[in-house]
């Protein structure tokens, strides 16, 4: 069975600082990998996704993620955060025809 681990439940960062959110996955094959963001009382919005090719994938709002097959990781980064980036971020994977398997999420708080 597949799984996704986000080791950091909460991250606090100052506005303008860089952000990295960690994601490790377990899956025997090559899954689709995703990062979603959830703002309070809203649904999930896709930031980016990866399946193959360049291991660094660009997403919306300045986010990027780097895939590492050797480390089974898909970490999310942003060079300079804004207060509006405060949200919960979910890493997920999708094996074929099985829907999405999510990590538990990382709550990001950006302070001025």
């Amino acid at each position: 069975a597949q799984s996704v681990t986000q080791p950091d439940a909460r991250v606090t960062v100052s506005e303008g600082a860089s952000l990295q959110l960690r994601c490790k996955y377990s899956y025997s094959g090559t899954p689709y990998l995703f990062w979603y963001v959830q703002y309070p009382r809203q649904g999930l919005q896709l930031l980016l996704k990866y399946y193959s090719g360049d291991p660094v994938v660009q997403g919306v709002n300045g986010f990027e993620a780097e895939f590492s097959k050797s480390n089974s990781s898909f970490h999310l980064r942003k060079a300079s955060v804004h207060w509006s980036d405060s949200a919960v971020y979910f890493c997920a994977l999708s094996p074929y025809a099985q829907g999405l398997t999510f990590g538990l999420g990382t709550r990001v708080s950006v302070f001025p």
Partner: protein
Amino acid sequence: DMKVTQMPRYLIKRMGENVLLECGQDMSHETMYWYRQDPGLGLQLIYISYDVDSNSEGDIPKGYRVSRKKREHFSLILDSAKTNQTSVYFCASSPGTGSSDYTFGSGTRLLVI
């Protein structure tokens, strides 16, 4: 505007009552999903529907059933709701199995008292 619509947004039910959560999509997507989201547990897959009357259990199907009689509509039914089914329920759709494009609804907050 391509979207997934969930109704109602908020619902309060008493333990033992039947609950119907509805989800619609206007993209002619074949595959639809129901998830529940709980603090500390993330999102967990309840059911997948691959098309009309073609449904499959997800990771936590116990206590739930689903109905899909039209491609654009997918219902989640709780027969005799329990307090531990208090949660936020999300519906999602994708064009088909193997697709990586998922669209999520805004969720239904269910409180069972």
